[in-house]
């Protein structure tokens, strides 16, 4: 699947409190969460971006709390994929589970600029920056995680595999 959008660039160690501050966690509705995505860092993010835009970030994106509200808020705000140098452990897992594609590439982070038009091929991991005419390749996603993404998230994966009855993941 190919995704194309404009890039919003972030630095290293973007933590979950920056993605969605705790005071907004009194709801679990994804549209309400999206409204407060990056509330302090980039106020009104949801109205600044276009649906399908892309986040490019540095190391350890999603560091901190286990709140799944963080990737949910980003996804519901309209972001289609995150390309980062690396992700924090729980965020990485959560993003796959809710079906928000994420890719890791150091070169892409170093070269891609805010506002660039970028296309991402999720099946090959190819990231193309059209403004600087450069192509990068993301680290391959482990097979097991791929299956979850392809199914559209962990719930769909579980349903598809029909594993609910024998209670075995």
């Amino acid at each position, binding site marked *: 699947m190919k995704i194309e959008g404009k890039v919003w660039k972030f630095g290293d160690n973007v933590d979950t409190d920056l993605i969605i501050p*705790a005071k907004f966690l009194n709801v679990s509705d994804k549209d309400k969460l999206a409204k407060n995505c990056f509330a302090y860092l980039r106020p009104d993010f949801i109205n600044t971006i276009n649906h399908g835009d892309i986040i490019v970030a540095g190391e350890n994106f999603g560091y901190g709390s286990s709140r799944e509200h963080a990737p949910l808020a980003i996804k519901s705000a309209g972001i289609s994929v995150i390309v980062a140098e690396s992700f924090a452990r729980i965020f990485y897992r959560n993003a796959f*589970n809710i079906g928000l594609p994420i890719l890791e590439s150091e070169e892409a982070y170093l070269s891609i600029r805010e506002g660039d038009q970028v296309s991402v091929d999720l099946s090959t991991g190819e990231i193309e920056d059209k403004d600087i005419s450069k192509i990068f390749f993301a680290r391959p996603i482990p097979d097991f995680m791929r299956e979850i993404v392809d199914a559209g998230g962990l719930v769909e994966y579980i349903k598809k595999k029909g594993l609910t009855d024998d209670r075995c993941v």
Partner: protein
Amino acid sequence: MSMTITEKILARHANVDQVLPGDLIDVNVDMALANDITAPLAIKVFKEIGTHSVFDPEKIALIPDHFVPNKDIESAEQAKVMREFAYQHQIKHYYEIGQSGIEHVILPDKGLVIPGDLVIGADSHTCTYGALGAFSTGVGSTDLGVIMATGKTWLKVPPTIKLNYEGNLLPWVEGKDLILYTLHELGINGANYHALEFSGTVIKGLSMAQRFTMANMAVEAGAKNGIIEPDEITLAYVAQRSSRSPFVCTTDPDADYEKVIEIGVDKIEPQIAFPHSPDNVRPLSQVGNITLDQVFIGSCTNGRLEDLRKAAMILKGRTVANGTRLIVIPGSQLIYGEAIKEGIIQTLIDAGAVIGPPSCGPCLGGHLGVLAESERALSTSNRNFIGRMGHPKSEVYLASPVVAAASAILGRIGSPDEI
């Protein structure tokens, strides 16, 4: 073949003889945990899966602690979703406020986690139970919803970094200072996807409360879990609280660590984490003059009875500085009661502290002590990110309960030796 304690617990729960770092395994979960923020999302996922019953109503803990007593209508609705689910599915370990407290304080205190257990929680500080020689780690709500349905999850076996603490502790140096010092050494990314094994004679000499503090902050270095081999102190703690027999295991002498880091503690002073990261740490002597609007003693890091006792020892017969507010929140109802019996609460009140109901309180900037613009706070909790305790232009410093108590008296960050 030899294994570390983390690998042994994982192998046992995957029903295999051996695991290696990098292996993807399916494991049985002994206890699944969520709170009033993460449970509602997990319950939604549980319903989407379409199972009608939870895998085991005795192996799920649902703890209202983040926004309780409820701060507004929305948080009351969230707590209600969790409460109704708990009643409907007869979840044994649902604790209403009045019997409850912070999840990571009450699970060990009620004997719900013992050595060798595998615990998965929809909260990043689930790693706290590693102090008991259990494997425990945080996940998001979808993972937890699936676990509530199946009792199983997948994990990647982490490589282990061993931290070996040797030497003699200086006065006023506690588990909190050791972990802050360690975060400074590792960096907030330094143990990403790894197991941290805390060991050495210094760790063997720490109380359970201090061990919980250290394991609690393993996630601040990105670690999947932090773990301490069980010993007599662990077993004595557990024997008073649980009738289950623990699976006590230790790392084999020739097990493979990815790295061993030696930490000499002789020169480690009390440590302070500066804004806005828990690894931005300086020794107390190099802090300078940092005045404080608020001091918070509590949280799943340092809200235990021993912490309150030490704070009261410092505050006894003294008063909080003019211009500084002191908020103390006992980690659980049980601790609150004990602190009253021991006279700790009276001492704190006499000194000018306000006591909050057992809960997370201001730790996550939700309620009960939110900071205004450009206010500065010292907290015994575990995170000081931008906006963590309130306004994005407020500042949070992290320290131990004794330093927090002394600083409340001084009105600036300082040592118990200065009062």
